[in-house]
């Protein structure tokens, strides 16, 4: 324990010091309780500041300032009352208060029990995903061998909650939207999992901490061995990104609450705190998925270079997580929305075949691991070809009939 630098051990030391203050039987309980509270606190704040970061980043994309009006409360603990509005950083707390105080309307025709349970289930299951993510070298909530299996099992329940919300609202629009949401989530569950399977095949384990350790080496101290820098890893990462966007109902795939057609989709009949819960669950799901993406493809808490090891590992994890979420926000600010049939066609006809091909590619990668010297280049070339050529061919087949046009002018 002592070989690890102090900052790395600090959170663990703090917890252990606190746990052994308590009598015996309670120790096991408080040990895990502190982990749960820590995750909730960190990722609750992370959710709060993601919402304001999203609005400010979108604002900047659109040549305007984001929110900067929410004031600092009068009785603030700051030594003197700040005239400055802290660039809008107090906005999420203002939103939270607004969400709490807004009236929670339940339509009379609604199925009360289901209507109430839907947000509870969706938040519960989307939080369960955090249990297996290795935030730091020593900071891993639960050391599961089948961590990935657990993660996808927990993530799959959110679809049930969305359909419960759509069905129980007894509203034409939300029913239509719930069916759309189901079609989308199910058809993107497959590419999501298939893009992760090559990693399991290469590392041979399902446990996330082992996967992060497998990415721990650097050639010449500079080039990290993250999986994203291998051909099959890069393809897997791209498919994972697209599927993660669809799983968390984000930008090009935010069909369920497509405002332009179905108002707020399955959330039409929710207001007040329940709506805020759905909103929070969506962000938790997004954070969990990007956390998984960072762990599997971007080397989790590994530092990018050997000499940067002194920075505590959980900061690397948080940095990469923020980077991925910024990318999601950037995509949301730019891209249009896909229609439901295009969306499902993209998944079944394009992503799933590519993911399967990527599986074969990873298998070849493992079998050709022992090739010496110049053969490595051949190995890389073959691996690249196996993924790029089908991508181009299938890309052209999916966009047949679409293309830029030239226009004539009247004589």
């Amino acid at each position, binding site marked *: 324990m002592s070989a690890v630098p102090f900052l790395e051990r600090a959170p663990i030391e703090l917890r252990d010091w606190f746990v052994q203050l308590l009598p015996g039987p309670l120790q096991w309980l408080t040990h895990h309780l502190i982990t749960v509270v820590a995750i909730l606190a960190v990722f609750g704040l992370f959710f709060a500041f993601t919402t304001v970061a999203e609005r400010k980043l*979108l604002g900047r*994309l*659109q*040549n*305007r300032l984001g929110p900067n009006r929410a004031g600092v409360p009068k009785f603030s603990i700051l030594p003197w009352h700040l005239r400055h509005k802290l660039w809008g950083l107090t906005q999420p707390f203002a939103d939270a208060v607004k969400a709490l105080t807004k009236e929670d309307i339940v339509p009379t025709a609604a199925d009360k029990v289901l209507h109430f349970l839907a947000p509870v289930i969706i938040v519960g299951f989307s939080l369960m995903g955090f249990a297996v993510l290795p935030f730091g070298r020593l900071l891993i909530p639960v050391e599961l061998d089948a961590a990935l299996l657990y993660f996808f099992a927990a993530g799959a329940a959110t679809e049930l909650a969305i359909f419960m919300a759509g069905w129980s609202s007894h509203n*034409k*629009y939300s029913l*239509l939207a719930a069916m759309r949401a189901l079609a989308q989530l199910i058809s993107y569950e497959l590419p999501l999992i298939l893009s992760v399977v090559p990693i399991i095949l290469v590392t041979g384990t399902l446990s996330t901490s082992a996967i992060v350790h497998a990415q721990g080496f650097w050639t010449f101290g500079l080039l990290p061995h993250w999986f994203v820098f291998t051909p099959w890893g890069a393809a897997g990462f791209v498919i994972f990104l697209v599927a993660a966007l669809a799983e968390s109902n984000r*930008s*090009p795939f*935010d069909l369920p609450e*497509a*405002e*332009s*057609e*179905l*108002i707020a989709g399955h959330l039409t009949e929710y207001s007040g705190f329940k709506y805020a819960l759905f909103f929070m669950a969506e962000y938790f799901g997004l954070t969990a998925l990007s956390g998984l993406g960072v762990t599997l493809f971007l080397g989790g808490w590994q530092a990018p270079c050997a000499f940067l090891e002194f920075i505590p590992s959980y900061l690397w994890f948080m940095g990469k997580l923020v980077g991925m979420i910024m990318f999601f926000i950037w995509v*949301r*600010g*730019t*891209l*249009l*929305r*896909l*229609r*439901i*049939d*295009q969306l499902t066609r993209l998944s079944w006809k394009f992503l799933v075949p590519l993911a399967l091909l990527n599986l074969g590619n990873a298998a070849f990668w493992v079998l050709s691991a022992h090739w010496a010297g110049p053969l490595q280049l051949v190995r890389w070339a073959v691996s690249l070809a196996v993924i790029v050529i089908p991508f181009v061919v299938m890309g052209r087949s999916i*966009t047949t*009939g*679409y*293309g*830029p*046009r030239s*226009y*004539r*002018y*009247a*004589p």
Partner: protein
Amino acid sequence: MSCSDQTGLDAELLAFGRQSGPTVRAVHDQFHGDLLEVSMGPQHPSTHGVFRMVATLDGEQIVKLKPVFGYLHRNHEKIAENTTYLGSMPYTDRLDYLCSMTTNWAYALAVEKLSGQAVPDRAQYLRIIMGELTRLVNHSCLVGFLFNDLGTSFTPLLYAFREREKILDLFESLSGSRMMCNYQRFGGCRVDPSPAWLAAARALVDNFPRFLDEYERMLTGNEIMLARTQGVGRLDPAHAVNAGLTGPVLRASGVDYDIRKVDGYGFYPRFDFRVPLGAHGDTYDRYMMRILEMRESVKILQQAFKDLPAGPIMDPKAKIRGFRPKPGEAYGRIEGPKGELGFYLISDGSPNPYRYRVRPPSLINLTLLEEMCLGHTIADSVVILGSIDIVLGEVDR
């Protein structure tokens, strides 16, 4: 909403009316399960105002679509019959509230045709400058709203609004109000732009193509945009002509009819500009029509600024008060940003018009909305409606 039965009609209607669209509109209820009737509007985020579409859905596909109007009906024509000719001019701003200058021009043109009023050269040039600036405003607005219907979170709309606001600031510093300009009079214009205004306008027009390039680079090649709009809402040229569609919607189907070239009103024959024509008549072509027309408008504006003559902006004999045109009638029309905007006036010699009729391009362009939407999904119907470009002030009058 009784669905019209087809049997009683003679062949012409069937030949032109109901036969078009991607799938023949045969409503076979028995084995398609129950149809879901969804009413979109009048409070709906994407129907550009108080406009309702009663769509009958078979799953996601539209089987029947009935537009419902009248929520914003103020009976503008009855009001016009009770006010003087000049008194109706500010009301024309409220017809198509996105393009007040072109509506003013159409009304002024009709009244000048009715009373045989002459217009000095400088005023004609100013009208062309204001008309083309309004075309830029309207087309950038439309393209922004179209992308909002396609699902982007406001980014293209705010880029379009950034450019539109610059032009509206020019209108405000000239006529006093951003959108309700009330700028044209019978026989000329009301305010003579100062050299500073002309310099600012010329600078804006010179770097407007930079905004268009940014837009095209960002969106025209976008694969999702191509997938969502190409082949959606296809419009057959023959049906478009028979249904009286005009403006970019018609030219997107390849029909060469631009009133600036056909009638040659104002000083348009002096300007050389081209009229873009589409080939497929789908939503993508309608979007590209607007982008290409904006580029042509920039060319017209540059020529207009170059040789803007000096001289009076108002015909000295024009009378502001006590304007009584001789009995008679006149139909004046212009190529508005949305299509052919016409004013049909009947005068009986009194200061109030006897009959004042506005030919609303937005309303008539909606005639084939049902044919275009059949067979498409509900998401497409919103995009098709967005590409037709309607403003409810003009639809309902």
